[in-house]
């Protein structure tokens, strides 16, 4: 074949594919351009004009309305439900596992999954309007154990945060390494609710975890970080005489905040805190809780170590936290239980508590 024919053929093909790319690119822009959309919130109380095309969760966040989400918009936590009366389209397969029949009838949707493609009518609980964004400075990063760090963050001068002990914040990472986008995850607040100018979080390194790896390997003291919150309904009810608190690992965070809350408010509740650890090196805040126990007779601290080594000279409870719970809690009468930890530990403890007469109304936990 003549070389010029080959050249002409290759050139023609390049031109055609180039033209097709342009057509596809233009079509994408046209088809995905939803223009300005109107969001009517709470029957006209708030009206927003927003650019369509993003998820409802991120669209609202851009307008400083923060809907709780623990998984960062990956449809794995089911926390970001919003009532959408109009404009959301049919329920998506990714939403189905999280939306009950009753919630379907109430038009509840996962805001991380539905896109803003037109005008929408939404109902958002008033308390969510109190959730704010904070640009904090990392004041200190402390190794509490080999895999748990304490982040102490200072709010900007003049700003304050008000939260209920037990609630959580969303922590936003910056892009790093191969992580190209901002990622956020939920972490319980470990600091005292009476401290309004700082936030403390306890973050355990999860192998392969995007956010926890950022905290453990990238974040430095004096860095700026973005938080939003407070979120969640894990907080003290207190309609009882005694609080049974159970935690493992970084699950200690909200329990610490709850213990201080009860003490600082002078509440009359007795408290027993069962803290489970596999080894002695998984324990932390030991001296602090021992001191609280000495100062406040209403509080009893029960650390449990599953596998102490002889050289640890461990004199506390030996075995799983479930064993101590089984042996030391007689019944659910007059008690509420507050739990935070891994799903397996929670399931095992909840089973024991229910066998002892605790009910869904007296057991509280965050399972994220």
């Amino acid at each position, binding site marked *: 074949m003549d070389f010029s024919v080959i050249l002409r053929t290759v050139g023609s093909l390049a031109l055609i594919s180039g033209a097709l790319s342009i057509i596809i690119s233009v079509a994408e822009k046209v088809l995905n351009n939803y223009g300005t959309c109107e969001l009517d919130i709470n029957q006209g109380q708030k009206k927003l004009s927003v650019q369509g095309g993003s998820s409802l969760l991120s669209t609202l966040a851009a307008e400083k309305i923060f809907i709780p989400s623990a998984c960062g918009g990956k449809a794995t936590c089911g926390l970001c439900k919003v009532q959408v009366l109009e404009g959301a389209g049919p329920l998506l397969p990714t939403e189905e596992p999280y939306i009950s029949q009753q919630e379907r009838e109430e038009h509840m949707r996962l805001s991380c999954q539905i896109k803003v493609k037109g005008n929408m009518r939404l109902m958002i609980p008033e308390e969510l309007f109190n959730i704010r964004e904070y640009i904090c400075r990392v004041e200190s990063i402390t190794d509490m154990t080999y895999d748990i760090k304490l982040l102490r963050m200072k709010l900007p001068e003049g700003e304050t945060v008000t939260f209920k002990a037990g609630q959580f914040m969303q922590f936003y990472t910056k892009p790093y390494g*191969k992580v190209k986008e901002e990622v956020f995850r939920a972490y319980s607040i470990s600091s005292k609710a009476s401290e309004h100018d700082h936030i403390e979080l306890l973050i355990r390194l999860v192998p392969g975890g995007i956010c926890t790896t950022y905290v453990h390997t990238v974040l430095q003291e004096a860095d700026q970080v973005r938080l939003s919150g407070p979120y969640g309904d894990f907080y003290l009810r207190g309609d009882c005489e005694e609080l049974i608190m159970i935690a493992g690992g970084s699950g200690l965070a909200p329990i610490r905040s709850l213990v201080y809350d009860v003490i600082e408010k002078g509440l009359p509740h007795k408290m027993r805190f069962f803290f489970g650890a596999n080894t002695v090196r998984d324990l932390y805040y030991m001296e602090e809780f021992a001191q609280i126990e000495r100062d406040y007779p209403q509080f009893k601290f029960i650390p449990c170590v599953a596998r102490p080594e002889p050289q640890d000279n461990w004199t506390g409870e030996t075995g799983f936290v479930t064993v101590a719970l089984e042996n030391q809690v007689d019944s659910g009468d007059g008690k509420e239980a507050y739990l935070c930890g891994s799903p397996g530990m929670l399931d095992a403890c909840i089973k024991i508590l229910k066998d002892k007469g605790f009910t869904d109304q007296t057991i509280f936990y965050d399972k994220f």
Partner: protein
Amino acid sequence: MKENPTNEQLRDTMQEGELVKDGFLGDDQRPVDQIVQEDMALLTTAGFTAERLGAAMRALTHKGMAGMGEEVDAGDYLVKAEEYMGLIGCPFKDNHRAAKRNTTATHKATGRTMMWTDLGIHLIQKHGFFQGKGSTYRLEPLELAAFLGLEAE
């Protein structure tokens, strides 16, 4: 009707820094469906199914869970299942959410150790996906079958 994600969408979701820091593909350049097809062909030819492998992995993980983070004696194996807070979604977008749990199993007789996640079990059992070569949690199908002591059928 839910549509299956395309290879391109899957590759995007499985990249480093998307669902997990290190991704699911390692340095494997093959399309996801090709990775699945080639691994499944190996497995099928040798007389195994991904369903059986997944079931055997899950059974070991369940035994390990009794230890709540501590190593337990599970017959021919020592098994440790470590849990973390939170859930992770399946990159195949099938609505499956797995606990963040890592299982480390050591075969007592051979001393061989293998490690998998709850999501990894699901990827094998439901999608025949053993992850890309060079990825953190890649398991070679026939090595896994031998490790689990399964007989060819």
